[in-house]
């Protein structure tokens, strides 16, 4: 007699299962996700829990080494480094997210238009993008911030402008490939306007590789802000921001006060690291063929 074998119904491979699979295969990506969660958490609730006011100076306790009172020590005017590092998370994350979001949106629009309609629009856009890319990126950012003034908004704009070409190019390529695809023709026949077809049908296909670029750019935006601070074009004091803390602290390394630069530097590295690894993980998640 044949047993009625109760076959375990295999759950359909949904997106979430794919995620779990990737995470299990790739412990480094799992680590990246955990680190990412930690960063978001400290950006959201960090400022409420820090022990000291990040802006409060006290010259009498300046330049103290890390201790139980001050986990990361104090800086040259007596502020608690730990509090400043945690509070800076919010600002740095905002800067990078805002800059990347801005360039994402602008790049997508430009790239979609160029990829879909082609023709002279495409040529003009290409030349425009080439012109932006012809500038050494960091120098262009420097120039923009120097010209417009070093406010946080301008730093965001500068970072956004120099990243637009990456997204525009990506979207343009993806849209171009699918411009005459079957499903697009079908959608148009069904009565969708060009714009709707572009936005709802074609563009979503470009999203996967863009996500990867987004996470990589997030890390780069933070480093950009740090570099600008080193030259003196970063955020204004006394705002706590990793870049400016590393830049100012770098001059204290040789005299032995390593904690001013090392802790913000570690946190900065931590964040950029997370974003980079996240990018790799997203790549795996999104397109297994393109694993790097």
């Amino acid at each position: 007699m044949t047993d009625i074998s109760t076959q375990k119904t295999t759950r359909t491979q949904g997106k979430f299962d794919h995620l779990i699979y990737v995470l299990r295969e790739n412990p480094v990506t799992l680590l990246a996700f955990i680190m990412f969660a930690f960063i978001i958490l400290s950006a959201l609730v960090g400022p409420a829990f820090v022990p000291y006011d990040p802006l409060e100076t006290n010259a009498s306790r300046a330049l103290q080494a890390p201790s139980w009172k001050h986990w990361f020590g104090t800086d040259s005017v007596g502020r608690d480094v730990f509090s400043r590092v945690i509070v800076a998370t919010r600002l740095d994350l905002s800067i990078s997210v805002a800059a990347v979001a801005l360039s994402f949106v602008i790049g997508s629009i430009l790239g979609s238009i160029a990829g879909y309609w082609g023709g002279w629009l495409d040529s003009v856009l290409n030349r425009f993008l080439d012109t932006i890319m012809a500038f050494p990126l960091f120098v262009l950012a420097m120039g923009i911030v120097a010209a417009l003034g070093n406010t946080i908004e301008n730093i965001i704009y500068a970072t956004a402008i120099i990243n637009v070409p990456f997204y525009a190019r990506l979207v343009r390529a993806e849209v171009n490939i699918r411009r005459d695809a079957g499903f697009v023709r079908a959608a148009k026949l069904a009565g969708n306007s060009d714009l709707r077809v572009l936005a709802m049908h074609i563009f979503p296909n470009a999203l996967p590789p863009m996500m990867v670029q987004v996470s990589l750019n997030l890390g780069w935006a933070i480093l950009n802000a740090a570099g600008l601070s080193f030259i003196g074009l970063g955020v204004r004091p006394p705002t706590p921001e990793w870049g400016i803390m590393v830049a100012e602290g770098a001059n204290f390394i040789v005299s032995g006060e390593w904690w001013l630069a090392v802790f913000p530097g570690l946190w900065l590295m931590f964040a950029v690291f997370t974003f980079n690894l996240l990018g790799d993980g997203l790549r795996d998640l999104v397109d297994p063929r393109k694993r790097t």
Partner: protein
Amino acid sequence: MADKTSRRNFMKMGMAGASVLPFLRAMPALAQGSDTLVVVTGQSINSLDLHRTGTNRPSYQVAVNCYDRLVSFGTKEVPGGGLSYDYDTIVPELAESWSMSDDGLVLTFKIKSKATFWDGAKVTAKDVKWSFDRAVSVGGFPSVQMRAGGFIRPDQFAAIDDETFQITLDKPSKLSIPDLAVPVPFVINSAVAKANATEDDPWAMEYLHKNPAGSGAFKVLRWTPGEQLVYERNDNWVGGPLPAVQRVVLREVPSPATRRALIERGDVQMSFGIPDKDAAELAELEDVTVYSTPIENCIHCLCTNTKFVPFQDADVRKAVAYAVPYEEIFQAAAFGRGAPLWGGEAEIKDTAWPRKTQYSTNLELAQKHMAKSAYPDGFDVPLSINLGLASWMEPTALLIQQSLAKIGINATIEKIPGANWRTAALVEKRLALHLENFGGWLNTPDYYFFWAYQEGNLFNSSNYRNDEVEELVNATLHMSVDDPSYAPNIMRMMEIVLEDLPRIPLYQPALNVATNGADDYEFWFHRQLDARPLAAS
């Protein structure tokens, strides 16, 4: 040093050994010996000609080391160690003697007979006249500085004969002879200059920009803009005692951290112009000697612009003066290097300047003044600082900002890039509350008052005007120090400005120089490297 077998020492010996090898393309083997000194600085020299438009301050040292002036200042010892120029003693440099007419209007100089330029030509009064004419004709800073001593037009200068040079002043001034010892009126080899002048360029600006032609203690062996300048001794120098070192290599290293590492390890013998913090810490080390000389006639101050309405209220200015955290600033920004300028007596008994003001940190008093003023609830004001001077201005501004918040004044820090600072602060004079660092080259209080407190003058960034001060400055600027009215005038001026407070003195800054293997550093008012007295130790 003999018993130290540290790695550093070993490396040094190794390098010296290697340098003795017959280098074809290297400087002669004396590189690590007592004949060459290496100096690092963070600033960049952009011209070898002080008179040229656009020449920056660090370039003035070339005029000091490579050219001669008629006279120079003597040397004195600084309390606490080290040497400094002596404003009160004038010594011969190119001129072996000089005399003044009875009315004080004609100065006659006798030039040393043995003085020669580097090419062997004799230094004559004609060269002196050509150089002086140049200094007053080129405009810009050089001509302004010449005017301070009463040298305005070429017709004031005459070459009586080869070795006699005469200056005729419009009015007698105690500043004239000292003004001859500042870097500006240097003597150029006019024959060489004229040979390289053109119709468009009668003063040979293009040529002298890169090719100095002087009679000074050092020649320029090599100048690589942005990298280094190498001085080589002129063995025929008669302007003073011959320098002890054959060669001085000046290297431009922008990063202060790198400069510190270099001087600590002894790979360079002098680090010129180091931050106060490094000065305080390097002073603790055995091998390194740090000279922190308070800069004469120079004050770091907080300026309240009289055009900003709340600052027109005397109580507000007083409140600010009492709210400033002086001690904290002195420790955090200056690391105790320099001289404090607060907490003195209100009664002025001498003409010493800078002097300790009668103010000190007293928040209660500050609050009382605010309450009495027309702004008891405080107000908002931007506190501007020069990005190029952020090393002391930033911590100072932060501390002031915090303190002012306690009396209701909400100050937002505005960092202005160096390129824009002069225009905003000194030319347009539009900064409401800002930090300032003027220092006068000629060491008399009236000279400082002229520049910083007289209406419309460049460094009066507070738009200050006081009729009595105007009168007093005009009367005293050229008055001799021995004049009976001199001291009372000076003291009255100090009284007025310390009551009116368009500038609130914070502290007198120091020029910090660290040496590790070099001796006999001398502080000069121009705050640049005078390489002539240096010796290797």
